[in-house]
């Protein structure tokens, strides 16, 4: 109801008052960001991990679960580029196939938590009566430590990819819900949404056309963080023995197995560990770049 002060930036004819960067402006900004060496390095590393995972069968690997008792704990050889583990399995192949598992878990958890979180968040943000119930449930989920919840779930149902995915997704959902709900609450009082209401727009058009698009940018950013944290949680669970079955080549499993032979073959822990760390670091760096580009308000001041 305030008389809106004729602010600079909100006034007629002010050329600086452009609300959204256009799509090609985003591309330009992303290109600009890639010129910084750390970002470029992160981009290369993440690209390499994805390529290794996708083309794993073509990259001189052998069966990652094939046991060869004759060659246990071998060092670096022409046949086994990164040596073998305690069962004689090829470490190089296991690292590459482990990347597949990690990326699938990361991607799966990201998509699942964003889709579910978006739906629940929109409902909570738009329907005021549902809001109080939904948000209390979300508070409840958030109050449980996520690793604990995951371990409980896995020990109830046994370790499999689906269980691990569920175990990682559930604790992530409340964060997405909060984010989406916040955006929807903000945007529902925007004049253009109210104008659409008075134009008689049906609910689905109000939501899909005028409200939900505002959540895309923050969700993309949040998605990168979920992606990284899902990979880390999967590795943690597997390392603790509460994740995927031990024969499945995942970085967490490999480190758990290799732990006992660390003095004999430190590479069994180091190789998956280094790849895991590099992957997480590069995803987080790229996530920061996306955030700076999509959400200039949060960008650090240079």
């Amino acid at each position, binding site marked *: 109801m305030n008389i809106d002060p004729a602010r600079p930036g909100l006034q007629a004819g002010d050329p600086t008052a452009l609300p959204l960067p256009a799509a090609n402006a985003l591309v330009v900004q992303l290109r600009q960001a890639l010129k910084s060496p750390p970002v470029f390095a992160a981009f290369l590393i993440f690209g390499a991990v994805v390529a290794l995972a996708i083309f794993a069968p073509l990259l001189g690997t052998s069966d990652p679960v094939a046991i060869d008792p004759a060659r246990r704990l071998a060092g670096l050889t022409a046949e086994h580029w990164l040596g073998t583990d305690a069962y004689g399995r090829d470490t190089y192949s296991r690292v590459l196939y482990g990347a597949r598992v990690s990326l699938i878990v990361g991607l799966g958890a990201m998509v699942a938590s964003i889709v579910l979180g978006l739906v629940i968040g929109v409902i909570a943000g738009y329907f005021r009566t549902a809001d109080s119930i939904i948000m209390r449930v979300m508070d409840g989920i958030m109050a449980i430590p996520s690793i604990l919840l995951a371990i409980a779930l896995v020990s109830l149902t046994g370790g499999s990819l689906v269980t691990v995915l569920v175990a990682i997704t559930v604790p992530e959902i409340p964060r997405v819900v909060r984010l989406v709900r916040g955006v929807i609450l903000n945007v529902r009082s925007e004049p253009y949404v109210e104008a659409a209401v*008075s134009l008689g727009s049906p609910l689905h058009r109000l939501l899909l056309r005028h409200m939900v698009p505002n959540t895309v940018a923050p969700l993309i950013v949040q998605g990168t963080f979920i992606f990284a944290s899902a990979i880390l949680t999967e590795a943690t669970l597997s390392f603790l023995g509460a994740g995927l079955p031990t024969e499945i080549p995942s970085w967490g499993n490999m480190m758990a197995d290799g732990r006992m032979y660390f003095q004999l073959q430190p590479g069994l822990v180091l190789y998956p560990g280094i790849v895991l760390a590099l992957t997480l670091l590069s995803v987080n760096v790229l996530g920061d770049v996306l955030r700076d580009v999509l959400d200039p308000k949060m960008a650090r001041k240079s």
Partner: protein
Amino acid sequence: MSETSVQPVLHIEDLSVGIADDPARTVVRGVGFDVRPGETVCVVGESGSGKSVTAFSVMGLLPPDSLRATRGRILLDGEDVLQASPERLRQLRATRMAMIFQEPMTALNPVETVGRQIDEVLCIHRDYDRRERRRRVLEMLAAVHLPEPERIFDSYPHQLSGGQRQRVVICIALILEPRLLIADEPTTALDVTTQKQILTLIRELQRKHNTAVLFITHDFGVVAEIADRVVVMNRGQVVEVGACRQILAAPARDYTRTLVSSVPSLVPAPRQPNQDEIVLDVRNLNKVYAERGLFRRSRVVKAAVDIDLTLRKGEILGIVGESGSGKSTVARCIVRLQDPTSGSIRIHGNEIGRTGGRELRPLRQRVQIVFQDPYRSLNPRVKVGESIIEGLINYGTPRTQALERARKLMDLVGLDATVLQRYPHQFSGGQRQRICIARALALEPDILVADEAVSALDVSVQAQVLALLDEIRVRTGIAVLFITHDLRVAAQVCDSIMVMQHGRMVERGSAAQVLTTPKDSYTRALIHAAPGRDWDFRHFRPMPAAAIQATAGT
């Protein structure tokens, strides 16, 4: 002129400000003027004219990574501000020059008491002891006519009203008795009655301390009220400098002429009484906001109390009031963006106040709304054409037919049909407001609600949009509910006016009646507070005494 013999406090010479990344692009070019002690110089211009950038350059407050002074000198008592070190600037800023801003809430620290914030200035720049500082702060609070200085001293900014906050900001600015006060639209965010008080206060303190005042404003009413001399700016350049009277009465440049004559007159145009059929009939409308809290006492706010109004075909009814008067609440209830607590709203006899959901939907298209802020009224991700036809599509018009209608509407609001393919950010505020009007008209409503629809626009654009509204009214016979805080705008377009205060209607009648013979004391106060009331901007002359008498309502 004898004035020139006095050494100016501020002397700006050939100032240019460029964009830091691209110094060839300038936002201010070759600006120069003087401000002498005890003098008020108003810098007037529309948005983007560079008036604020000039003021910020004087204060040394240009954002260093985006704007930079590229040429010229700014002499404050003979010292070049542009050459001063950051250290020196900081000293100058409190002791020799000070600035007050448009929005007093953001200029104050919300988590510190007012007293401490004023005290801080003294603490840094003067060697007084604690008791002496407190005495001076209280003295200053009394000097800006704040009631109960002791209580204000210990208050937080959010506990004060907008006008009181601006007084506190003035306290901070003037406590060290600077030679120069820069005021950047200091009353734009305030209600007219408060504005009047703040203007009087600035004038009073200026007289007392012989301060030079540089006053940035877009409002010629304010200029007429306080300026000694006027600097008119446009697109980063000075158009004209002259004594206030000379600029208002005999502007030399065409731009100034257009600007001055765009200021709407407070004297309502004579209008025929409207005897057409009643379109909108509101009876006993109440809106109560109840804040329920688990651990708090519930608080009840009556935003609208027993509002009655009727609107005839082709009539423009103005609802006038200050912020918090409930005028927007009434509008939003009528558009049914809010549910009224009680009362009836009838459009052509159909009750829409109580209906909801499915039954409301067909009635919605009978009344449409245009909002204040043109930058937030259009979905930035949707093409203009899609926004305009959205309503038609909602009510089942085939797409091609809807687009055809959109093209006709563009013609009606004075835009080219090709703009339908563009996105909102490609348009100026005035153009966007035209698009919003087109969108509202697409459904051929009986009633258009304009909620402060021209308040965010520059005067020249404002005049165009008002003319457009009037033209549409004549061509389509639409009834308009025009919500505004600006009496000049109301006088310009409204057939009848309803004045609201604290959620209640205090006066209602034809525009001529309300503005020339107001019965209620509040209406009179509002009219009295309108700045520049004694100047006839359109005809470049003082108001004839009779007209002032008339608008004063004795």
